């Protein structure tokens, strides 16, 4: 029996197939301007390359911002629940999750068994999210993927005091005019992102091990900055941190399908 999890985020779409013990296949693509259409295309592509048809999928769970609009889903589940299920599978000892996505940052506390005990999420402010880092990279004219290594090449940091994405950009421009090197500014930006998320997480409390997920967890500069803020815990990052939500969604769907005993009904040959 195979279940599918699809995480339709603000910047990227992630899909994972799960067979009850392992992730069979997965895919990541940009959300673009027609996320629902792209999500359906990806879903179909993933099925095709695994010789599956839609009735060969026992259960499809959608999560992320587009979760309530994906017509092929059997169920929509919140990304907080899905990320937690994904982390519990990938890092069974995890007690706290930091998840920074395209426009949200969240900290979740895991109970034994992977259930969410408590969580905190940023409100409408974009500072400290993936979008914020993208914006700064654009201002500095540096590819986002290079920002982490560049920041780590600097021993110095600078203070970014603004709590607002727009004003932080003005601050970055001001620093550039003062002649501060881009790598120092990036360290300052990552330090400010780390301070924000750690302060958000203090509301629910950090217990180790702490797992960092979401697209921003791919940035070694942010990982190092959070580690520096949270010296009491070792920050762990899964191999593909972006996929955690999709994997969790697939796992939740698998469990639902088992609970409904729908396995026999859902296995059918492609017509």
């Amino acid at each position: 029996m195979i279940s599918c999890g699809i995480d339709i985020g603000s910047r990227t779409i992630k899909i994972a197939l799960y067979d009850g013990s392992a992730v069979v296949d997965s895919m990541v693509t940009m959300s673009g301007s027609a996320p629902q259409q792209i999500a359906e295309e990806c879903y179909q592509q993933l099925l095709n390359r695994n010789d599956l048809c839609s009735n060969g999928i026992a259960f499809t769970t959608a999560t992320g911002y587009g979760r309530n609009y994906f017509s092929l889903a059997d169920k929509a589940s919140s990304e907080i629940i899905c990320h937690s299920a994904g982390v519990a599978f990938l890092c069974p000892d995890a007690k706290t999750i930091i998840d920074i996505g395209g426009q949200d940052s969240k900290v979740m506390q895991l109970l034994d068994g992977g259930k969410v005990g408590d969580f905190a999420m940023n409100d409408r402010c974009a500072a400290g999210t993936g979008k914020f880092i993208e914006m700064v990279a654009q201002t500095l004219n540096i590819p986002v993927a290079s920002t982490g290594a560049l920041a780590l090449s600097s021993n110095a940091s600078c203070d970014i005091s603004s709590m607002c994405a727009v004003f932080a950009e003005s601050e970055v421009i001001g620093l550039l005019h003062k002649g501060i090197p881009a790598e120092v500014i990036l360290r300052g930006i990552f330090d400010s992102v780390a301070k924000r998320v750690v302060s958000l997480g203090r509301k629910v409390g950090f217990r180790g091990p702490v797992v960092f997920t979401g697209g921003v967890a791919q940035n070694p500069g942010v990982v190092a900055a959070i580690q520096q803020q949270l010296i009491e815990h070792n920050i762990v990052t899964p191999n593909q941190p972006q996929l955690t939500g999709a994997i969790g969604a697939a796992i939740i769907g698998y469990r639902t399908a088992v609970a409904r005993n729908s396995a026999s009904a859902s296995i059918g040959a492609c017509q």
Partner: protein
Amino acid sequence: MTDIATQPEQSEKALFDYFKGSISDEIGYMREQKAAGRGIVGFYCEFTPRDLILAAGAMPICLCGTNKNTISHAETLLPANLCPMIKASFGYAVTGGCPLLNDSDLLVAETTCDGKKKMYEVLSRDHKMHVLELTQKPQQEVAFKHWLAEVEELKQTLEQTFDTTITEQKLRDAIKAMNAERRQILAIQQLGKHKPAIVSGLEIAQTRYRVAGFERHHKQMESFLSMAQRRLDEGYQAAPTNAPRILLTGCPTGQGTEKLIEIIEECGGLVVVQEACSGIKGVYEMVSEQGDPLEAIARKHFNIPCSCMTPNSKRETLLATLASEYQADAVIDLVWQACHTYNVESVLIHDFVRDELGLQYMKVETDYSDSDREQLKVRVQTLLELLQ
């Protein structure tokens, strides 16, 4: 065939349409009464005793403060970092868009927070205003004595403004009328106790109104109660039996600001009761019909567990009672941005709900705009999934 089958539904629709459009009825009624020489008293807060205004022969009207469109107008004079309720209320005065405010002979305000207090001073440049000074220590009898003196002073203002004498009998009659009205509103609120639900939280929220002592509205509320009884008899369910039951606490909602109730119910939850001035807070306790009537009026209003009180332990007592009576599964605390008292008090409410009631708690800080709907949905849906 279809006509008979859909008839009850049509009458429900007519009922809800009435509540949706009740403002125009209220304006019409107010104008009619004003033309007949009756005084109009506008007010903003549950601490204002409608009973006293009725006893003066005047019409008590709770003024509008829930329109997001008036906020930008208010911000031309007031600072932007005030709560949306103050700005929306003041925005009506700036735009002149509220006939209920425009036609008021007297405004009664109160000192629930610094923002409102100072806003009323600005408002008083163009409107006759009486400010009730709230005392803030509900456990102190001396505080009650001062509050009673404030209520007595309002009585004098009403007598002077409308050239009348508020007799003890008039007070007793007004208390009886207001208690009947409060009982009717309370009965509607108590429909949320049914499990499985026969009415949704949003449906209950639609029954709110502005004008006290409005006979037509009483009839419509009676129809609402009959409709609920009919639904009960027919086995109608407003939500699945296992829908998580939410006790909504904190700042009041109003027509146009039901965003959070909508989100909770769109995500599959059910708002069973609001521990807020827009819900049960103002009608949970009646005015005693024994003893000195003015003192009884003052006492009932003094007992409102608003976050402007310190300590506000009565709110915790009320939350505990409501959580049990309405079989709540979780508490969601609504804080309008920049409402400092509710915002800070949430620390205490969080601990009380988690530790004493053993329920899930979530705080939502927002304003009247729709910009954070999607983010709120993530949070609310997570909470609801955790409950299932």
